[in-house]
């Protein structure tokens, strides 16, 4: 392949004490990929995501972002290299307005977050872009409200808006619909459908409808290793997947 992979993972392993939680995982995302990662509870999905984003360090294996090895880097350096993620547990700045949450991220992207003077014009631009991004994802009306006053679904959309504001080449989505009232899940669907087509996206999600609708490739993780990978149809038809995961949750 002439085009470098957006994200390439080889032999990634991690143990917590004697308990192996990630065992030799291989994963490739080309630019524009839409990969869904599923697996039963405790399969190590969130650990894998934490390894990819740099929150924890792997024991072995390689992670490449656009051809550069990043497995020893901290999370902030990987972000600046084009990797963004959303969080399952809320880490948003609760006292800060939704718009400022996004604007602060844009300021980091634009490398002006160090400035203590001559920032006014560029900070204004950050604010305007932040507002536009909130409008785009459909929560412009709550831009000035502090985040802790927002509905849960709005907070999840804000998470996505912040990650997108970083203009990543690779986006990791950690259960964007988890905990969202079923009436609002369609809003998340729409937001995901509108994600930039060149962005490589790895979606971790419990909501099977969401994964099968969104992803063109599905990776099934069981007990820390990859059980199968293939198109949604192949995955649905795979008896191993059925017994490990789908069978249990779909009966």
């Amino acid at each position: 392949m002439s085009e470098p992979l957006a994200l390439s993972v080889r032999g990634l392993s991690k143990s917590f004490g004697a308990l192996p939680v990630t065992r030799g995982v291989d994963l490739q995302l080309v630019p524009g990929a839409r990969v869904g990662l599923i697996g039963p509870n405790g399969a190590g999905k969130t650990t894998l995501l934490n390894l990819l984003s740099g929150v924890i360090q792997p024991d072995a294996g390689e992670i490449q972002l656009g051809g550069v090895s990043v497995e020893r880097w901290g999370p902030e350096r990987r972000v600046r290299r084009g990797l963004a993620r959303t969080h399952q547990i809320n880490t948003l700045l609760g006292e800060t307005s939704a718009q400022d949450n996004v604007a602060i991220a844009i300021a980091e992207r634009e490398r002006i977050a160090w400035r203590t003077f001559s920032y006014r014009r560029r900070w204004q631009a950050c604010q305007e872009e932040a507002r536009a991004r909130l409008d785009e994802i459909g929560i412009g009306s709550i831009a000035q409200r502090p985040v802790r006053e927002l509905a849960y679904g709005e907070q999840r959309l804000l998470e996505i808006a912040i990650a997108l504001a970083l203009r990543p080449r690779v986006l990791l989505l950690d259960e964007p619909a988890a905990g969202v009232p079923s009436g609002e899940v369609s809003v998340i669907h729409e937001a995901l459908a509108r994600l930039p087509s060149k962005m490589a996206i790895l979606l971790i999600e419990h909501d099977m409808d969401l994964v099968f609708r969104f992803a063109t490739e599905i990776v099934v993780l069981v007990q820390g290793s990859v059980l199968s990978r293939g198109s949604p149809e192949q995955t649905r038809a795979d008896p191993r997947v059925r017994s490990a995961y789908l069978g249990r949750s779909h009966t």
Partner: protein
Amino acid sequence: MKALARGALPWLLALGVYVFADDQLALGTNALVMILLTLSVDLVLGRAGIITLGQAAFFGLGAYAAGIFALHVTDDPLLGMLVATLASGAFGALSGALILHTEGVALLMLTLAVSGLLAELANHASDWTGGSDGLQGMTIAPIFGSFRFDLFKHTAYLYALAVLFLWYLVVQSVIASPFGRSLDGIRQSPPRMRAIGTPVWWRRVAVYALSAAMAGSAGALSAQTTRFVGLTTLSVLVSGTAVVMLVLGGARQRYGAFVGATVYVVVQDYAAQLNPFHWMLLVGGLLMFTVLFLEEGLTSLPQALRRWARALYRGPAGTTAAGATGTGGATGTGGATGTGGSA
């Protein structure tokens, strides 16, 4: 216009003290020094959320640096101020780089340890610091060669006010800037900031150094205006007092440090005259009242009083009307006033 007037009020008050209460300038100068120290704690603790009980390290270092500089190099106050500020800032950057990998209680212990080490060092290096006798005998030349430090502290007071004003402008500009906003984010959620690419450790070291420089200026002011530096400038008590002042006035409030430090210094002075042994009781009572009833410190007292008055005025009879218009929080604190009033 109203905001401008409110912003200028503390400074007009400070000048008013100079004009109308010039027998209190020694106390006033002390208050200004403590305001500056508290403001430095607000930046690091209030804004960036770095839990510290070690601000005395930088206060004391600045004081000793200014004193030793005056004794051994030159007695020019502005040069001394500059040297002390830079020395404290540099030491803040260095010690911060070492300890700011940690958070919470571990960090608290490390800030204590750093100031403890420095205090012990100052105690042993008595050739330089005067040890437990303190650093004495320094002379401070007139500012710009013409404004002598007089016995009645006229010059000292205005000098301290000017230094405080400069630092206040720096702080205001920092907290409004993207850098300041990222500090706000770091206080609220370091994982979030890492996830958007913020080099959290570097930012924390930077603000820690800035705050240390500020505390160093406060120390230098203390040394130059009293011409004495004691070992107590490095003591944990100074760090703790500054935190108490901040909580009293209100963290992250524009004039929280001003109100907190002034009230503390004045109450301490008057209460100590009334009863030199138990003055802490009054300060302690005030602190408890503030923490229990005023979420944003004494700076929020006017709003709180208005709220309480409204709740009392409507009273229990007006529950339907008050319940409809007033917020839940207002009625809750209204109940608190009742107990406060009867005590």
